[in-house]
């Protein structure tokens, strides 16, 4: 299960660089669903075995890759058992250059590899984090960070898409993720996040009550607690009949969080600081709690060791 915190109200944070995000469970034969989320692209197995150009055409047609524009830092993340491998292609149509990135999840052979060198692309790190899946299998989150500075060609674009034959395991967040937010001048006022300085965001103060929504996807950490409190008066008559006047309800939830990436940690912390009104609901969009984050201190403030860009903490969400 995945939990989302959706922001409402007339004070809307939105990302400057609004990619078409992909999310959805990446497994063999699945189609990918386009939603707002933090993921750039999910993964699925491909069948095309022809040239790089054919790969490109195929993935465009099947919408399972994503364009990166200008300089990007992103990371690939997936969950594997000890035998899986994850590979992605980087392709720049202007220069017709393709670059293959491999991520082996087997802890004993973990590495990042590339078939051919590609200028201005650097990748580093293969990290792993044990994780127990929903079906109670011990798996690993393996991830690496790739930094692209591809600027050649007129389009200044790079396309990243999954490579043929590589599969992933049962992990809802597997895919290509943005690690940091890129800012492009869209004529808007920028506000840099004051807590971590991790990414500039833009504030648009619209007049409409619901301009849009911004979601923070939180990993399925066990232990979320929902609480509800009725505000009511009870009276007991002389014969024992009870009269109950329910004046209102107040819902709350305590949600422990782990492995929250920088973007979402920043977002959640900014929600907390601005006392934004949030809706907390599950994947089925069933609203569970409407509230604000009422932690006395910053909700996500502790590094998720040994990861340097993951955070852990807990949020207390209470009705307003």
């Amino acid at each position, binding site marked *: 299960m995945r939990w989302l915190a959706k922001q409402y109200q007339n004070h809307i944070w939105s990302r400057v660089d609004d990619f078409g995000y992909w999310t959805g469970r990446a497994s063999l034969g699945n189609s990918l669903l386009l939603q707002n989320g933090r993921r750039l692209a999910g993964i699925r197995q491909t069948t095309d075995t022809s040239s790089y150009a054919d790969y490109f055409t195929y993935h465009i047609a099947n919408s399972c890759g994503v364009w990166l524009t200008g300089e990007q830092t992103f990371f690939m993340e997936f969950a594997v058992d000890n035998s899986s491998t994850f590979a992605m292609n980087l392709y720049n149509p202007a220069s017709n250059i393709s670059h293959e990135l491999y991520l082996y999840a087997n802890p004993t052979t973990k590495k990042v590899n590339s078939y051919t060198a590609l200028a201005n692309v650097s990748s580093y790190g293969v990290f792993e984090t044990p994780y127990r899946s929903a079906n109670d299998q011990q798996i690993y989150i393996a991830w690496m960070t790739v930094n692209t500075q591809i600027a050649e060609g007129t389009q200044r674009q790079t396309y990243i898409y999954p490579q043929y034959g590589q599969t992933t395991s049962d992990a809802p967040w597997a895919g290509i993720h943005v690690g940091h937010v890129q800012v492009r001048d869209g004529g808007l006022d920028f506000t840099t996040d004051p807590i971590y300085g991790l990414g500039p965001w833009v504030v648009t103060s619209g007049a409409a009550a619901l301009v849009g929504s911004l979601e923070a996807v939180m990993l399925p950490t066990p232990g979320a607690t929902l609480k509800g409190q009725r505000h009511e008066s009870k*009276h007991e*008559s002389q014969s024992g009949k009870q009269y*109950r006047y329910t004046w209102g309800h107040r819902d709350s939830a305590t949600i422990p969080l782990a492995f929250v990436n920088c973007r979402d940690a920043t977002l959640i912390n900014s929600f907390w600081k601005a006392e934004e009104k949030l809706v907390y609901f599950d994947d089925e969009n069933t609203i569970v709690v409407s509230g604000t984050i009422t932690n006395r201190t910053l909700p996500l403030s502790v590094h998720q060791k040994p990861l340097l860009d993951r955070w852990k903490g807990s949020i207390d969400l209470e009705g307003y």
Partner: protein
Amino acid sequence: MTYAVTSWFIAQAQTQHPPIKRVFTIGGSDYSRYVKRWPSVSVKWDDLRSISATISLENDEQTFNFFRTDKVNMRKATALKLGFTHPTSGDELINVHLGTVDKATYNGGDCTISMTDKFRLFAQRVVGKSDAPAVFSIASQLPSDIAWTLVTCYGGMDATQSSANTDLDWQTFQSWAATFSNDSVYVQARFEGQKVAECLRKISRYTRSAITQQNDKLAFYRFTLASTAVTALSNDQLLGLSVSVDDTDMTNRQWVYGDYRAESGYWAINVFDQSTASINSFAVRESVEKDESIWYVNSANALNLAQRVISTAGLPYDRVNIQVPLMPLHHVIGETIAIDEPQTGIAQSWRIMKHKLDMESGRMDLEVDASQLVGGFYLDVSTLDGPDLLL
């Protein structure tokens, strides 16, 4: 005049878990979500004074600082409403209190607002002066005529003589005035600087009438027949009940003085009525109605008052205090509560004489008694051709 509510509203008030709703507005804007503690509002049948309500509000977001920054905001209309939410037609609420803000106190993140109704003016305006008294000396003057002058001329309320009057319940006033007019009850009065509220209280007491606020209007009653608006309460509804029989409530010989001559301080009329049976049992308990502010001008009217007192207070009467959930929410002063309580053996219908509504807990405290009830009636049923006889 009872609240104009639907039968659905009354049915909801009887249920154990109704879709209840309470609302607090200032200038028409809803501030219900800021209320930390809802007030109690009480009213009594013979003690006219402005009804106040004090409400505790959350001010962490400085929502209510507008009273400080612009004091004129204190004159905005406030409203406390209570009722039920209909599943399709929306809220049906009654006005528990309407008024304006007379005091706002800020303490940390809290704001406490005290509100009074518009009849506060009655406590701020005087009628006559000691060296220039307001004299009502016309010989054929009804108590209602004097009350009208006090309310409109001295109290500054609406003088519209129709149901469009915004400050006075015209229907009850008409009925009240007709009671005096039919019996040719004439009074004279002389006020030397009392507040309007005090003058009206004197009329209320001297005529054994209720002058009270209902739904932001002044209502007038002289209780005669039992009210047909009845809510029956038994152990299933009563949260608590206490009954007292107080010997000091009793009067078995009532003196009424009248036709006062202010120049000489002389009372030309002096009548009394008594209950011989009561005197034989309890000995003489005398009371004197002798008021230099208002008096009857003929002995028949004075005697009528004496008889009225003796008919209700000739014996100590039951004074019942009940605590109850919101079943009688739609009732006002003077309406009837039928009580069936085996422990005290009470199975009677009496008028509501004091009414207190706690909006915080949804509880009402009522004082009901027989002090002003005349001619309680019972409906009986007979089966055609049956052996029973109607009395």
